[in-house]
């Protein structure tokens, strides 16, 4: 128990160091929300249409930005070697790492997402759903992204390799969440999409740690 909470504390503080924290996430969204209209042109209705989707894609990319180094540092400096010598299974270690990452990065980003959507002109009605999707989606991103990060351990090409491994895994939550948001803005029933998103999140929570632990063991040996 104590080991678990120590690990969780360490991971959140490292993840915070890897770029979490409320100020930084708000800044990140502000940057993205600024770039997007500038790049696509400022027509308000066009913007409003893509706003939730854009906030959503930005979330996925922010998850990628911070995931990259989830395991790599611990692998390079030998911490992963030492973590094996404990009665906690490696699966649990991986899960806690992802959770810490999500608490320090995903959650603040999810809290900032409705603001970004609002700034881009989304209807206020959908903001709670934007938060819900961002929170659940962020969790799925963290666990799915962790798989990519673990797989690219020790590979000559980390970085965007993680991105390439992970982006396909990010597609389903984006479809489900984007669909739910789109339905809600058009007054259609949205619960199905959101339920699918939650189901995907649950699957990520269940399967991610197994895959991550297997990948880590493989890299260590």
């Amino acid at each position, binding site marked *: 128990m*104590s080991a678990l909470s120590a*690990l969780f504390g360490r991971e959140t503080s490292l993840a915070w160091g890897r770029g979490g924290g409320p100020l930084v996430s708000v800044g990140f969204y502000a940057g993205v929300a600024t770039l997007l209209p500038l790049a696509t042109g400022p027509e308000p209705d066009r913007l409003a249409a893509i706003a939730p989707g854009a906030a959503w894609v930005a979330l996925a990319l922010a998850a990628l930005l911070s995931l990259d180094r989830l395991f790599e540092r611990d692998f390079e400096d030998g911490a992963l070697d030492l973590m094996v010598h404990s009665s906690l299974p490696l699966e649990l270690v991986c899960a806690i790492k992802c959770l810490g990452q999500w608490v320090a990065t995903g959650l603040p980003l999810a809290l900032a997402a409705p603001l970004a959507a609002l700034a881009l002109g989304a209807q206020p009605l959908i903001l709670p759903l934007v938060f819900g999707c961002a929170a659940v989606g962020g969790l799925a991103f963290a666990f799915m992204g962790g798989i990519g990060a673990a797989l690219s351990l020790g590979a000559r090409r980390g970085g965007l390799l993680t991105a390439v491994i992970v982006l396909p895994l990010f597609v389903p939550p984006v479809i489900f969440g984007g669909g739910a948001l789109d339905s809600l803005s058009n007054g259609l029933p949205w619960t199905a999409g959101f339920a699918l998103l939650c189901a995907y999140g649950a699957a990520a929570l269940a399967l991610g740690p197994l895959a991550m632990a297997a990948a880590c063991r493989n890299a260590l040996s």
Partner: protein
Amino acid sequence: MMMTGLKLQNLGLRRGGRLLFSGLELDLKAGQVVALTGRNGAGKTSLLRAVAGLVQPEAGTISFGDLDPDEARASSLHLVGHQDGLKTSRTVAEELIFWSRWFGADRAQALDSAARLDLTGLLGLEVRRLSAGQRKRLALARLLAAPRPLWLLDEPLSPLDASWRTRFGDLMAEHLAGGGLILAAVHDPLPIPSIGLEIGA
């Protein structure tokens, strides 16, 4: 929690297609220390990692007295390797307390081990600011914070100064007196009487 011995039988290790050694035999009993020697690249580090379960041996068996190997690795050994697993951006206190709790000790034990390795004055410093010897002491402090019978040490003395080599020798002797076992890879003789084992000669 007690470990009665470490036994390597007919052990062979292969790294990247090259056979490092084979037919290695070792029978280490509680209270004994083995000084593992061999030229650079002979396979000392690889052997320690095999005992720690991080490398699969090519042949032979590794047994830990009457303990189940998985269990022994989970709760009865410490590995201090070339790489120390410390995060340079965190403080000495943060790292020491984290690792102590990870290995099942509590905060008080962590601070106590810091005091025994004279790290108390450095607790607030970032790890990246430590000198090489101070950093090694931090890595070794984990051994004392969460007591476990088998110590696997990879060149534990190298960045320590003369006075700390003796003091760490005393700490090893104390550990052995309490029924511990030590397998240490070294290039210089240990400051305490030890059994020699040379590999790849």
